[in-house]
């Protein structure tokens, strides 16, 4: 099997969480002697090349971050440039998000389930996983550690059944967190997480509160 992997994130590759996930996934493919080529849509200059690879190959995987409940606008624009193909081509997806629960990604997944039909190709399933927001701010060693589970998914994909196997479905984790977990996390969000975000912001040169109301609403002035 030879897989064309397209990073559908609009973020530049250097800072792309999706890119780190693809790297781990591709390692899993390699372990199963499956070859691959990777592309990223963040630079429009590469679009002709990606389209060419899409046309010439029949095993395509688009990895993407969830943007407001669906695919990012830039990826939608790219998808509109693709020609119709036939069922010899299989299109699979790896959908990741910052929010951790599976329920957060289902609306995006529902769009991806129908997308192959619009493009005339066969659906290969969608690997769904949240809790990926922080990958880019981790050091390299930790990035490798947190993305390692995707390596197993690469191996699974190389076996040829797309993402339809039970292991791929379980990979998502909980649809909703149980109440005790939500209560504990809620407390962390109000305390430690706030401090952590403020610290990360300070390292980016931010000196104002993260909840600053920059356009304090003068609704009468509308």
């Amino acid at each position, binding site marked *: 099997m030879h897989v064309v992997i397209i990073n559908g994130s609009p973020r530049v590759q250097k800072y792309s969480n999706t890119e780190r996930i693809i790297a781990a996934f591709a390692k899993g493919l390699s372990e199963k002697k499956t070859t691959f080529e990777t592309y990223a849509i963040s630079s429009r200059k590469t679009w002709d090349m990606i389209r060419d690879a899409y046309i010439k190959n029949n095993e395509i995987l688009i990895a993407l971050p969830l943007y407001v409940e669906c695919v990012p606008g830039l990826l939608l*624009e790219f998808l509109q440039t693709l020609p119709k193909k036939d069922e010899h081509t299989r299109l699979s997806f790896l959908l990741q998000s910052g929010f951790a629960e599976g329920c957060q990604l289902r609306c995006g997944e*529902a769009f991806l389930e129908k997308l192959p039909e619009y493009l005339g190709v066969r659906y290969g399933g969608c690997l769904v996983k949240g809790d990926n927001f922080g990958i880019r701010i981790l050091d390299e060693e930790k990035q490798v550690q947190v993305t390692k589970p995707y390596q197993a998914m690469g191996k699974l994909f190389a076996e040829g059944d797309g993402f339809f196997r039970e292991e791929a479905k379980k990979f998502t984790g909980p649809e909703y967190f149980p109440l005790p977990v939500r209560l504990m996390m809620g407390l962390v969000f109000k305390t430690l997480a706030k401090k952590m975000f403020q610290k990360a912001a300070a390292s980016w040169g931010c000196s104002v509160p993260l909840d600053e*109301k920059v356009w304090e609403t003068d*609704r009468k002035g509308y």
Partner: protein
Amino acid sequence: MVLLVDTTTKHIGKAIAEELLRSGENAPGFELIDTTGMHISHCVGCNYCWLKTPGVCAIQDDYEPILRKMSKADQVWLVSDTHFGFVSWQTKNIVDRIMPLVTMYLKFKDGQMRHVMRYDHQPDIGVIYTGDGDQGYLERWCQRTALNLGSRSLGVYSESNGKEAVSCML
């Protein structure tokens, strides 16, 4: 205040605005923004609007005035062409860049993680579309999008049901 953001190639927002005007004294205050000729980039996912310049998008183009109006409106109607049964990429870019209205902070609401909103007032969201939209999916997406903004969905209407959408604006 009702804000119509029209990205359609047929500029159907104009007909909706005219229908609103025909409502006479019931007509709400409204503004129609036709994005034709505007330069509105896609969201690049830099997270600056959360972590570097909170509440302000790093991209300097024609979008910020639209976002300011969206933040103050009671209703925002996305007037969009459709492709793959979904809104156009032009409309999706407008929605993707709404992130400065929410903060990096998190909370749980109705059992799900949500971002804490930056402002006290949130606009309700509706969609009016041209073409072969997937009505069921668009309704689902609009509801989820409103959930992200801590507001509610106003519903999804095809161009031919534009009058019904207008009745929701009154």
